[in-house]
């Protein structure tokens, strides 16, 4: 279904009404001043893009070029020749195929790079693209380990690039944020993300295997390039294409795969999307396998104000309490995420006037206007903060002990081993 798009003028009007945080560009977007009144050349109407990674997810993100229209998908890239061929077929006329992403970045006619590779490539490709002057839409999870996010944010800021992450996004969660902001639920709040509240964690599905027997690399796949910064391990088809999610070297299991989808809008609704928890606790089997991501039961994030976010896989340990509400405080409950049912009823209607930052700007609009505020998708910094929760949760799960976190310095408190896991080595010649 096509979404109706807001005009720039309409958006500015709404943003002005709803902006909760006063920033430079919600006050006076300089480019708007200059663009509308000083004869500045408006940005191109067609945002041209390249998709790097044309496997299952990448194929879903290729916009086919249509006959009679200016082509927008100018390049697709994959180190698997079979994937590349299917990507080219879907993109149609006007699109070229590449094996090496660096050659894609050299094309001056491409505005946007959509990084749809496994996560161990996300940071390196995004950083290189931004250095090359491209804007970046990166798939989730934005990073595989914490320091990658810091460098990505710094790069986006330094080079003035738009960086967003293609998770489910925040549009539609304004109602929830209004209820939270109003205080009608009371504090502290407890939020539950489990299959009963609509969050499936796919823990078993995206667990790695511990019985891999090496196989011959298919001719179509450049396995060494696929591994890139990851350590060399013998090829097995379960390591690549979709099931890569189950291996620490490339991703972080179901938690990393689904975490940004489920948690990012909730952190926005809680108004905690540019900070972090002070304590992360987990339950699950232990110790973890060194190579394969595995099972976990619960993860609990606690903030200094007492807010708790509870992730429950429902795949290990006690079953989820189906009567437990999605969000509750001492005075009331939000019974689901869409913002319709509450206890007592009517809380969402009663808080309809509470001002919150509305999140409905598309990535393409942000690229055209250079306004990276009020975006439907999380910005690079917001995504980094969200994914940090996931990295910390996986550190708690792997080390088998709670993580005490300093969200300002973004360092682990009192546990050098956990702190060291915020950064990981990369296989040469790749480096941050």
């Amino acid at each position, binding site marked *: 279904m096509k979404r109706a798009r807001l005009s720039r003028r309409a958006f500015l009007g709404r943003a002005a009404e709803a902006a909760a945080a*006063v920033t430079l560009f919600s006050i006076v*977007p300089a480019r708007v001043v200059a663009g509308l009144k000083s004869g500045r050349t408006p940005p191109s109407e067609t945002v041209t893009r390249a998709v790097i990674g044309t496997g299952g997810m990448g194929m879903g993100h290729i916009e086919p070029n249509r006959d009679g229209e200016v082509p927008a998908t100018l390049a697709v890239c994959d180190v698997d020749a079979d994937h590349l061929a299917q990507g080219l077929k879907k993109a149609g006329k006007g699109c070229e195929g590449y094996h090496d992403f660096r050659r894609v970045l050299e094309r001056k006619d491409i505005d946007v790079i959509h990084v749809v590779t496994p996560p161990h490539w996300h940071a390196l490709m995004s950083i290189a693209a931004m250095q090359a002057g491209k804007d970046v839409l990166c798939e989730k999870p934005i990073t595989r380990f914490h320091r990658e996010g810091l460098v990505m944010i710094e790069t986006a800021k330094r080079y003035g690039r738009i960086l967003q992450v293609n998770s489910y996004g925040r549009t539609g969660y304004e109602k929830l944020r209004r209820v939270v902001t109003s205080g009608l639920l009371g504090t502290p709040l407890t939020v539950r993300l489990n299959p009963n509240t609509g969050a499936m964690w796919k823990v078993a599905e995206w667990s790695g295997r511990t019985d891999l027997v090496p196989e011959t690399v298919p001719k179509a796949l450049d396995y060494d390039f696929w591994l890139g910064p990851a350590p060399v391990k013998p090829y097995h088809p379960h390591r690549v294409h979709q099931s890569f999610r189950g291996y620490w070297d490339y991703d972080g299991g179901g938690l990393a795969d689904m975490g940004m989808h489920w948690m990012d809008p909730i952190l926005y609704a809680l108004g905690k999307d540019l900070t972090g928890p002070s304590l992360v606790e987990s339950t699950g089997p232990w110790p973890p396998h*060194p190579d394969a991501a595995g099972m976990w039961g619960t993860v609990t994030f606690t903030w200094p104000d007492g807010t708790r976010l509870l992730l429950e896989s429902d795949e290990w340990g006690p079953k989820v309490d189906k009567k437990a509400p999605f969000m509750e405080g001492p005075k009331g409950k939000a019974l689901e995420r869409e913002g319709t049912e509450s206890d007592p009823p009517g809380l969402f209607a009663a808080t309809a006037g509470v001002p919150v930052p509305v999140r409905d700007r598309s990535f393409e609009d942000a690229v055209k206007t*250079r306004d990276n505020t009020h975006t439907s998708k999380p910005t690079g910094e917001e995504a980094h903060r969200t994914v940090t929760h996931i990295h910390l949760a996986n550190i708690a799960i792997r080390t088998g002990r709670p993580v005490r976190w300093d969200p300002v310095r973004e360092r682990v408190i009192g546990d050098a081993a956990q702190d060291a896991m915020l*950064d990981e080595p990369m296989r040469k010649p790749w480096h941050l």
Partner: protein
Amino acid sequence: MAFVRHAWLGLVLVAGTAWAAAPFGTDLDALLGQLPSSATVSRDSVMPRIAAMGPEVVFALAARLVEPGKGDDNGARWALHGLAFFVSRPGAEAERAWYLEAVKAELAKTTWSDFNRQFLEEQLRMTGEVAAAPALAPVPTEKDIKVLERAAASATGFDRWERTDELLAAARVLAAGKRAAAAGAIYRRLLKARADEPQVRCAALEGLAAVDGTKACPDLLAALTGDAADVADCAGRVAAAAPGAAVTAWWAARIANARGSAEVRTAVLGVLAARGDAAALPAVRRTLKDSDPGVRTAALRSDAALAGAKAVPDLAAALGGPDAEAARSCLLDLPDAATAALEGTVPAAPPKVRAGLLGVLGARGSASSLPVALAYVADADAGVRRAALGVVGVLGGPDHLALLVGRLAQDADAREAAADAFGLIVKRMKDPAPAASAVLAAFRAVRPADGAGSTGGAKAALLGLLARTGGEAALAAEREALGDTDATAREAAVRALGDWPDASPLADLAMLAKTAPEPVFRVLALRGYVRLAGEAGEGDAVLVGRLRDAWAIAGRPEDRVLVLGALGKVTHPAALEMALKAMDDPAVKEEAAAAAGRIAGELILSRREVARAALDRVLAVTTSDDVKKAARASIDSIVECSDYVTAWEIAGPYVREGLDDKKLLETPFEPERDPARVTWRLLPRNEDSDPPYLLDLKYALEGEHRTGYLRTRVFVPKKTKAILEAGSDDGIKVWIDGKVVHDNNAWRGTKCADDKVPVKLPKGWCTVLVKVAQGEGDWSACIRFRNVDGGPIEGLRAEAGAAE
């Protein structure tokens, strides 16, 4: 004990591989067999017992490591990995020390394969043992800089940006090494030489601002109002972040005495706001009276950003003038701490400002504002009273219903505000019966003196409130009021029935529409009947029946137009038939044609032939260009879809906890198992579908991680070998007469004819069932049958439903 262990470790290191055959035997095997530990007890006990074996266990475990595919060494890997985490816990420094020494001793061996060496190195890392950080990069010399600049300038392709990044890093080292001038020179050279690369200009501006202070400001202002949008964006951010009082003063001077254009002043105010330096406040406040409204708005926002709660007087004052909207927006944005200041400003404010402030307090939603608002519900100014009642609606509860009912009965000027506030509170109540009781009590107590002029006004207002609560007692009161001696009350009762929150007064309204002596009441009742019928949720067929009844009652053309308006929203063949018949009525033929055109447009997928005939008739009857244009567009879509099967019924969505789209496609749901028990409905048309024959399941069913079914019956005049052409987003499964003919559990976007599958169509009708899985994003499919030569199949047609 530590000494003994270390002494012993020395022997181990000398002994080399002698520990390969470690002496733990079955004890260690038993412990490894418990890994990973699920039960809390074993989780907390297994690793301590392994660790208690001391460093020798590392050698024993390392000896069990094998090459990939050469055996199961998971126990040893789990244990070594778990030990790395276990010994690195805070307070276990001694254990960590022997673990590190033991692993390093293992790594000293030359016999390890790359795979296992890498594994052991990783365990060191998991203890927090990281290689010493490289020494800080030395401050580059002039010669180094020249080399780097030359490399960045001469490199091509991808290398150019890597070299540029290195140059920028070197400039940052220079800046950190107190060689700001040299760093600044690099940034200025980059700004000049790389003017066509916005990202490089951004980086250079950032660096320049860090080293050049106010000297960088002119460059930033030029970029801020220059011709490159992305560089302007960077310049704004950098200007906001550049430290120093002198920098603030430089920007503040740009707005002194209305210097520069309004656009520049606006931009500079934005910079000052984002800098957050209150030293700029005097300059900002001087622009609150600027002649340009855009500048004044920017000034209000900057004032709010810099002064916070202390900006309340300025912002409140502006609520009474032409910048009220901007001021209100700023007041809403102020932090929670400003609420007390806002509340404190209310008493002394003039009426217009007071009303505005109360509106802001209501929208901010702080519970502390309720008593403030309650103090003004009987204010002398009607605007203030209305605003105060608005706050009570947002923040009040059942305890305030009686107050609101009282205000409603007494205050004609604030009656609507009181009713709205009452409605808001009722919406938050699980059971609105007490609210209805409060209204009924007030209703019975209404005396002439209570009304604003007459009892009818107060009664009417209370009857209107009952429509917000609903319920049997309230309905009974409305029915009773239909016989009231006061015409105002009777009319209010009719209106209230039409606004009822459920369909229970439908019969009353039908009767009133037919028999009420007052023509106005008949019209109101008919309107109410049509509205409630549309919202009753009784299904399209029942709704068409009710609209037919309404049509029979509707005496005036305007009333028939009202019915046609509702009819046009019903996607049902019976609705189309009724609209087509109505086209014979000369008084409403245009409206009937518009309704018929709309309904036919919705039915072009599911009832192609019927819709086409109807659209032709619409074109013949209407004189409206808009209706003609829409009808022709629908006919064009029919032509474009002619090759595709577009008549479908739909069922779903089907979701199962814990299953994603891939598994959902493989999981049979009721339409596969027992289609007769399924509630099928016509697949609705999404007007935005491109191409029009796209079957948009997302439009019909919405959501993600689910699956849905489409069903149709296909007729061919003779047994036919055909090619099924299908595209889907995501996976698809197709049955013909219950037999699976196609199964592609793909993750993809819809591209028509992505799949081409040979199938056999039996003579006559057959049932085609299609299942489409939804992962994320779009959810759609397209289906057609072609003959084996790729051409259309003669005589093939499809109708939504199942074959007999």
